[in-house]
């Protein structure tokens, strides 16, 4: 299994301006020192609540936002160090699918114009070849040819999302960020689109960073899962491991909070108190200590280290004082 994307110590801070002279007085640490990698043809799911920085992370990786620190490497090329010209060339390898099918298509452009634009911009293929490729793409995402002359407002949310997926595929990317790609869709459409994404992965070997707040969706689509809280990844391991045995108290609470469509199962729910603290002024120590049901004295003071609570073959990284660093192993 070869590595496609490697993210190391990536951070994205936003200056919070205030005061008379609009000087940056504080920093909002939207993404704070995040590292992970994604193998070819695999999916990393990223879950967390709104404001945890998962969307910012996705955008910083493909440089829709300029990262503050850290590196991103795609097939060994450091994306974070490319010049504008070089970045333009690499854009075709990394694309993004958006959440809101109503906002992600330009309302005054036809579907055909929207889908042709990436190919024209990158001068890919001859016009005749483009036509064949677009028709092929429409077939793949389950749309018919006549929609090319239509405007987005004539379509349902599910159809628009398929157009958005087709647009991301036009350049034949190797890596796609799917930012809440199915969250705005109806249940029956959601399952269709999820299956479509899985099919694309099988057929084209695309790697996905799948960002979602919905744990069930993430489990369904991901090979690996990372859980984010206030800009940090607090737990990361394979999907099967995470859902079988979550370690971090936040992951546990998140899982127990998901409503289950089965009235017989009155779950023993861990209801977290309060809200997610503001990322401008995150709590000291472990950022989760203000809401953690298993908080200890040390959590309020010292940020927890990231340890591998699994094995070397099946790693399970967790960022919590409940799992202290074993003496024999090095800090990961």
């Amino acid at each position, binding site marked *: 299994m070869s590595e496609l994307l490697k993210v190391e110590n990536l951070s994205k801070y936003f200056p919070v301006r205030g005061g008379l002279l609009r000087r940056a007085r504080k920093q909002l640490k939207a993404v704070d020192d995040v590292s992970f990698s994604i193998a070819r043809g695999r999916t990393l799911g990223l879950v967390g609540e709104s404001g945890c920085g998962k969307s910012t992370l996705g955008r910083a990786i493909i440089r829709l936002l300029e990262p503050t620190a850290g590196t991103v490497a795609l097939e060994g090329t450091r994306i974070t160090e490319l010049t504008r010209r070089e970045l333009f060339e690499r*854009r075709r390898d990394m694309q993004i699918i958006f959440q809101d099918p109503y906002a992600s298509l*330009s309302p005054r452009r036809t579907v055909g114009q929207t889908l042709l*634009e990436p190919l024209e911009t990158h001068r890919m293929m001859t016009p005749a070849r483009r*036509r064949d490729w677009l028709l092929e793409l429409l077939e793949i995402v389950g749309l018919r040819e006549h929609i090319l002359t239509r*405007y987005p407002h004539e379509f349902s949310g599910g159809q628009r999302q398929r157009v958005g997926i087709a647009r991301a595929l036009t350049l034949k990317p190797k890596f796609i960020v799917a930012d809440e790609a199915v969250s705005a869709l109806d249940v029956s459409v959601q399952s269709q689109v999820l299956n479509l994404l899985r099919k694309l992965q099988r057929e084209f070997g695309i790697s996905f960073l799948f960002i979602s707040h919905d744990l069930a969706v993430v489990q369904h689509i991901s090979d690996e899962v990372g859980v984010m809280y206030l800009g940090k990844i607090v737990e990361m391991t394979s999907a099967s491991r995470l859902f079988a045995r979550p370690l971090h108290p936040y992951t546990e609470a998140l899982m127990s909070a998901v409503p289950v469509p089965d009235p017989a199962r009155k779950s023993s729910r861990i209801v977290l108190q309060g809200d997610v603290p503001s990322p401008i002024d995150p709590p000291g120590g472990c950022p989760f200590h203000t809401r953690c049901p298993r908080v200890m004295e040390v959590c309020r003071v010292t940020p927890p280290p990231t340890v591998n609570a699994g094995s070397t073959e099946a790693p399970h990284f967790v960022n919590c004082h409940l799992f202290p660093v074993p003496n024999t192993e090095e800090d990961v």
Partner: protein
Amino acid sequence: MSSASVAAENTTIAVRGRDSLWSKAFYKFRHDRMGMVAFALVMAYGVMALGTVFGWWANDWSEIRGGRFDPISADFWFGSNVNGQDIFARTVFSTRTAFEVGLVVAILSTLIGAVLGAVAGYYSGSWIDELVLWLKGVLDSIPFYLFVAAVAFAMQGSAYGMHVAMVATFWTTTGRLVRGEVIKLKQFEFVEAARAIGLPELKIVFRHIIPNTFHILLVQATIVFVAAIKSEVILSFLGLGVKNGVSWGRMLAEATYEVGAGHFNNFIWASLFMFGLVMAFNMFSDALQDALDPRKV
């Protein structure tokens, strides 16, 4: 559009649409009765103005044909003025003056407002934005009539001092509205998608952002049109506007001497025609706004 896309369309990939937002807006506008009446009135004024351009009527507006203050008759539909000129011809010809000023100012100030507003909005927070905002602030802080007087003085002899002054001040409102809309639009995911493709920023602004402000531009152009006509009348009334032609404002200026003496024709007809056009255009503009509002489409 690039030659590549033109070629693409030739290979039978039809990407142009049929049922655009424009056709939806058109449908809505057609069902707005007041709007249609207003539009018909505006068109009637337009034909009136166009007729003078082609020399169909009212080209004798400056000729002295009758006597002093002739009453309304078959020859002088609206009577004659102090010089014995036909008030009807002068009123009609003034429509052309109004349209000339209105169209020139509306088109130019909308273009300038669109480009400056869009660029400022897209780069909001940067020095470009600061510069545009500063320019707008400076222009807005000068009293309008003082500014016109200054420009007219500076451009002495030119017939276009009034136009320049109006364009320089009227683009700011359009610019502000467009800037706000663009700041909103650039958060939209379709703009991010264009950036993810690697589309150059200026292309993003002109291809994806400005077209989505067309509804604002169109409505704003109609508002500026009305404002320009009103200003033209006032400026001409004050002697700062039309120099070598006739305008409702100049007719009203003449009327100030006449009304006291009991001669009302200049006053009544100039006011009535101006009122009719401004009113109709305002109603048309409102209907257009309703029809184009993307939230209601």
